[in-house]
């Protein structure tokens, strides 16, 4: 076996890869060969050293020196200094460039990490790291000290509800599957996280896969299931790979397979990978996809808990739900129920995006207010602009406003306010967002993802989109708002699955909270947020200094004027791209509506 005096670990998780980690690996290998060091120093690819926000990053052992923000051009200097001369290069070290993980940084104010506690802290590809943080102890406790009924009672007491969005109590679902007289029974983990902007589950699968697997095994023991599927979307190749490694290691250690930990309980599972269909996140569509069919939903009942994959009872929960379970068993239901509101217990992960100072992944106790999330955890609105709306629950959620900021976050409160918990995407919008445009954007998404099986969703979403497009284009007419309301009602009420039922929600909620904006578009032919291009125009103010920057940058040459003279924009040529507004140094170009 070769003996290396030094090892260089290069982080190759998605963030670092996106920043060019492979090029850094190649450059390192080339340079070690060039310097004749390739027999002495080994380059290894790993995941998550801890500073991905400032990646590509590498760790040199045995010294334990962490270098960040590396580019291939830095490598020859680094190799010469560190590996040939033995001098640490301070300017590449993280102390020089503070670590900012854009997804999951250090604990923020008001955050409580239960599901995300191990993410970024342990090596997901090494089961021993998980074992060292009390991993699989809950499974041991369950198998040796608790009955299946006892497990269900404990989870029921904890108040854990489905984190996929609907919020059905997890233990009640387990009880239904347990009570069905049929065999075999299956466990399903819904890892088809398709909502744009939501990546909480990806982070858990990539950072702490064993917590999900352990939760599934405990659930399997409780419901009496013998086999399980984790249905993961194909857009997450690293999560799939991490899961497969974790499952193999769990088998090796006797946590999966026959006679787990020497008991007579057997359970095994596999990963099923999707092929790109948003609707497969709906449970009956997901089950159809597992069975090798088109991912089209079926009417419920029968619910999957009774008749699921291969027509057998199948318990289906989401990634975050399962990964809460080991913690509940270990720390007790009372600990978990101590967090949150009366009906929504524990914590919830959110992916906060949009116009906030600190976007990214957060985990907060239920019951926190939207104001606390936006202004304390996410740092407030960017560029000192005004808060306008927050969209919760993904493309089938609603837009909430100023008046909802002090809402205590739980399943009921959000539904009552006209939105929903959803999987946990939060898109924060400032005063520059046009709510009709936002509704159109989400409708564009849902109509494209409609599977086409039922008419209300297939045709209805298309018609709603056309109406919204018409209004954004300035062709809206009297009666369009009423037509939209009627259509939304019919599509919600008559669609087969959650996709169609939820698709009109962004429209309904913006119609309710921002009706004046719709009216302005239709009756006054004006877009108050100055977003919808057919309804705005650019005008140069008298404060123009005639510097000619705008004229040089205009892609359609719509701007004319002499040097040091006020310029003019030809409205018929102008395409309203907004470049002139961005490049003007004197704020002399106004967007009129």
């Amino acid at each position, binding site marked *: 076996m070769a003996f290396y005096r030094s090892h260089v670990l290069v982080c190759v998780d998605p963030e670092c890869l996106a920043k060019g980690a492979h090029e850094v690996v190649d450059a390192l290998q080339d340079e070690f060969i060039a310097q004749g060091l390739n027999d002495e120093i080994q380059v290894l690819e790993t995941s998550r050293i801890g500073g991905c926000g400032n990646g590509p990053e590498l760790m040199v052992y045995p010294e334990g020196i962490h270098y960040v923000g590396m580019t291939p051009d830095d490598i020859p200097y680094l190799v010469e200094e560190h590996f040939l001369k033995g001098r640490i290069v301070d300017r590449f070290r993280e102390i020089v460039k503070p670590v900012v993980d854009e997804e999951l940084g250090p604990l923020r104010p008001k955050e409580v990490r239960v599901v995300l506690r191990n993410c970024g802290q342990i090596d997901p590809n090494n089961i021993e790291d998980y074992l060292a943080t009390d991993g699989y102890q809950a499974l041991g406790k369950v198998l040796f000290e608790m009955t299946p009924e006892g497990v269900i009672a404990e989870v029921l007491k904890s108040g854990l509800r489905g984190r996929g969005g609907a919020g059905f109590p997890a233990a009640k679902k387990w009880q239904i599957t347990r009570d069905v007289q049929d065999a075999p029974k299956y466990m399903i983990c819904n890892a088809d996280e398709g909502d744009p*902007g939501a990546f909480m589950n990806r982070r858990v699968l990539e950072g702490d896969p064993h917590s999900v697997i352990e939760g599934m095994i405990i659930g399997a023991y409780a419901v009496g299931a013998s086999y399980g599927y984790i249905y993961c979307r194909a*857009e997450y190749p690293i999560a799939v790979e991490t899961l497969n490694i974790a499952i193999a290691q769990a088998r090796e250690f006797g946590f999966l397979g026959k006679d787990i930990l020497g008991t007579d309980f057997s359970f095994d599972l596999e990963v099923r990978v999707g*092929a790109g269909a948003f609707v497969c996140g709906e449970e009956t569509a997901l089950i159809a996809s597992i069975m090798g*069919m088109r991912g089209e939903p079926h009417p419920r009942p029968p619910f999957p808990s009774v008749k699921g994959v291969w027509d057998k009872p199948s318990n289906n929960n989401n990634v975050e739900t399962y990964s809460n379970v080991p913690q509940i068993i270990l720390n007790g239901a009372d600990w978990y129920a101590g967090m949150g509101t009366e009906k929504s217990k524990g914590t919830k992960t959110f992916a906060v*995006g*949009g116009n906030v100072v600190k*976007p990214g992944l957060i985990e907060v106790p239920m019951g926190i207010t939207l104001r606390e999330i936006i202004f304390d955890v996410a740092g407030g609105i960017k560029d000192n602009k005004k808060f306008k709306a927050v969209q919760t629950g993904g493309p089938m959620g609603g837009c909430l406003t100023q008046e909802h900021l002090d809402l205590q976050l739980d399943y009921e409160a959000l539904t009552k306010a006209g939105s929903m918990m959803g999987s946990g995407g939060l898109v924060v919008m400032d005063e520059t967002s046009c709510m009709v445009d936002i509704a159109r954007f989400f409708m564009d998404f849902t109509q494209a993802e409609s599977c086409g099986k039922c008419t209300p969703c297939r045709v209805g979403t298309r018609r709603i989109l056309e109406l919204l497009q018409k209004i954004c284009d300035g062709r809206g007419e009297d009666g369009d708002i009423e037509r939209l309301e009627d259509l939304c009602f019919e599509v919600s009420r008559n669609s087969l699955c959650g996709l169609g039922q939820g698709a009109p929600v962004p429209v309904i909620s913006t119609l309710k909270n921002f009706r004046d904006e719709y009216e302005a578009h239709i009756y006054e032919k004006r877009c108050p947020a100055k977003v919808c291009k057919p309804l705005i125009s650019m005008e140069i103010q008298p404060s123009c200094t005639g510097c000619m920057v705008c004229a040089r940058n205009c892609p359609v040459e719509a701007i004319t004027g002499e040097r040091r003279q006020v310029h003019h924009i030809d409205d018929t040529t102008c395409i309203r791209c907004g470049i002139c507004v961005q490049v003007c140094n004197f704020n002399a170009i106004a967007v009129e509506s």
Partner: protein
Amino acid sequence: MIARTIERDVSAIVQEAVEKHGAKRDALIPILSDVNKALGYIPAEAFQEVQKQLNAEEEHTYVSKSQLFGLASFYDMLSTKPRGRHVVKFCENAPCHVVGGKSVWDTLSDRLDLKNGETTADKKWTLVTTSCLGLCSVGPVVLIDDDLYGNVTPDQIDEILARYE
């Protein structure tokens, strides 16, 4: 990928996929995904071959050609049309959109002279949009084959495209 199509026999590719995932109904999506990966798309011969190989195994796994085509047309990642040697996937979702995705898309579309779903005449490039890749904190995101590019700006496009043969 096109070069490999000529060299490798469709039936060998299908056989490899069937052996890996099993000759079962529920293995159809992984089998078709593998074929799609190896050939860049699923040609008509491949459907025939999958059908032949699966139906030969056991009687109860009978699959029809329409079932196979139904799968390929339903799932976005499976293609029944030939694709270029390099597939450029662009994330068009809200989080990438608000951080400047549109101008990246316009530049890509302009440089490759392609609209969404089109392939260049020399079969080098295919340009498509993709569902959210969940990498929203490094958006805009472009995926070329299996290479991921984050925080992409329009002025990087030429340099990125030049990396591909």
